[in-house]
């Protein structure tokens, strides 16, 4: 078995959301923690796409941020190409940092409005010392500057923009074009792994199609590996090789795309699939979805999904199910394990 490019083991992130110290003393409030991500594990093979889906607040963006190192994990490990991403002393080794990059959801907030596209795309180059020593040390020798411009031009062309666009500012671009600039910036350090946090959810469908096509072309031509975060199952079905479904900080089902969409096992996955509007009006019967995501501050005991689950029994209310391997899928559900559904 080949070594996966990315391996995540028992990843957890807890946020302290307690009231300020004085309030806790005066009002006798306990400390409060949100377990945003709890015991999440997966592996991504080189050149493949793992998609994480779930509703808002399920922890999928936190996983993305943990992976690229924007948050430090409370527990667990991220192993990148055999190297522990935490590194000695907890800081991330530079050798790994430039090999993974991130694309953010909001193309309006993720680009500095005062910088030219040239500076935006060239920033990672400077940061990681690409494009010659001149650029790295900050001295602007003409040769180094030209190399940077050339490189930015090539990056912009690879995402379908013109090299001349480097002289413009972000406000001169539409949402879809801005997202391409984000992609160009992410590609600047020639990473192998891209973490994409809802890269198309702020875009119109026709523009979304353009961006998804570019991402797919880049994956083919550069052999990129993606972690794709989305709440849109149709998009996930289009881009991914493997899909993880998250609910309240945990992965409840992890399966190859074809298996997951053909035979969803976990009741939550089935519910999500049922909730998608049927564009072809095939008259597919839909079970109405009940209830809402519970408050993560006070999650239900046992399986977090039990208050909304039509198959919940006593065991589901008391014992938290583990993610178990079952016929090619991994499911965390007592009912599936016991063969009740």
């Amino acid at each position, binding site marked *: 078995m080949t070594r996966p490019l990315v391996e995540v083991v028992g990843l957890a992130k807890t946020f302290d959301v307690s009231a300020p110290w004085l309030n806790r003393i005066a009002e006798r409030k306990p400390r409060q923690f949100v377990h945003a991500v709890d015991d999440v594990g997966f592996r991504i093979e080189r050149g493949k796409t793992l998609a994480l889906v779930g509703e808002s607040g399920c922890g999928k963006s936190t996983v993305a941020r943990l992976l690229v190192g924007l948050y430090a994990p409370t527990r667990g490990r991220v192993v990148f190409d055999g190297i522990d991403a935490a590194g000695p002393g907890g800081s991330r080794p530079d050798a790994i940092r430039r090999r993974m990059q991130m694309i953010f959801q909001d193309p309006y907030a993720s680009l500095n409005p005062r910088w030219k596209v040239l500076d935006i795309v060239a920033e990672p180059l400077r940061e990681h010392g690409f494009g010659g020593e001149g650029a790295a040390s900050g001295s602007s020798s003409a040769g180094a500057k030209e190399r940077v411009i050339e490189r930015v031009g090539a990056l912009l062309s690879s995402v379908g923009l013109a090299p001349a666009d480097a002289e413009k500012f972000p406000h001169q671009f539409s949402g879809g074009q801005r997202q391409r600039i984000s992609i160009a910036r992410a590609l600047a350090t020639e990473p192998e792994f891209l973490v994409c946090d809802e890269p198309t959810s702020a875009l119109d469908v026709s523009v979304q*199609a353009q961006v998804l096509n570019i991402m797919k072309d880049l994956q083919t031509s550069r052999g990129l590996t993606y972690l794709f975060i989305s709440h849109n*199952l149709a998009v996930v079905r289009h881009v991914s090789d493997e899909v993880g479904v998250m609910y309240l900080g945990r992965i409840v089902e992890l399966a190859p795309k074809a298996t997951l969409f053909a035979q969803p096992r976990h009741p939550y996955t089935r519910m999500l699939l049922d909730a998608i509007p049927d564009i072809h009006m095939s008259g597919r019967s839909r079970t109405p979805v009940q209830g809402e995501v519970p408050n993560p501050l006070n999650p239900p005991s046992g399986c977090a999904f039990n208050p909304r689950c039509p198959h919940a029994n006593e065991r589901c209310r008391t014992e938290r199910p583990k993610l178990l391997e079952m016929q090619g899928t991994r499911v965390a559900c007592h009912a599936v394990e016991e063969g009740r559904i």
Partner: protein
Amino acid sequence: MPEPLLEVRHLRVEFPTRRGKLVALDDISFDIAPGEILGVVGESGAGKSLTGASIIGLLDPPGRVADGEIRFAGRRIDNLPYEEMRKVRGRSIGAIFQDPLTSLDPLYTIGRQLVETIQTHLPMSAADARRRAVKLLQETGIPAAEERLDQYPHQFSGGMRQRVVIALALAGEPKLIVADEPTTALDVSIQAQIIALLKRLCKEHGAAVMLVTHDMGVIAETCDRVAVMYAGRIVEIGPVAAVIHAPAHPYTAGLMGSIPAMDEDRARLLQIDGAMPRLNAIPRGCAFNPRCPQVFGRCLVDRPDLLPAGATRAACWLHAERDVKAAA
């Protein structure tokens, strides 16, 4: 054919700016029959929300209706004075907006907002209005409606807030509800609940709906007819099934092809190259011509009106050609 509830004729909305007039909506005409659900779909900036805002008389100044007319149950409403329009709004035409948090006043309880709305539009005592408010909340599926009436908007989740907003829209028993992206801010599982609720309640109350959304899936599940907008104009309008399965306008076809499907695998999505033109740079002829795969001479010169195209009507010269050939 029943008398249409809402008639929009040649509606034109302009925004005067220092650099000249921007025409945001141009020659928009459509009807909504009583009890009908009309979907309005398009990309951001196509003018779909603006169409809704014109109908409920909430155009942001300096935007103004420059031409055309809007009739509700035969009465012209686009030129009513502010106070008159206020009576129409809520009583005859209800509105639901995208963000359920900003649609509710955070300083008042849900009950107070509902009772106020009910008493504004219907002659009722405070006690009766409160009973009606409870009934409305129950109808929208809010558990323990009696107690929740005295809570504030921040005590409700996003899905629950949108249910309150729907209850508010229905409070004055309007005959038409303009729903502008009512589910866009919600999660998929909640979205399905809200759409089903909106559809059921409007049927029960006999209200017609103009559903503005960018989500073709929602349109397919909910609407009777759909209008597709592009650059301030309607490019295609017709029964939902016809528009989705046999789109007559190349833009509609491109839009449908760019949606990732749940039941087929494609290596690449169909994409429409380029982007929708800005309002100050709408090309001559058909506004879609620079992006259209089937563009020909006439598209660059003349602007097409809605022409009959199979089961739908489409603003595209391809269909004029076909008619000419058929006649010859």
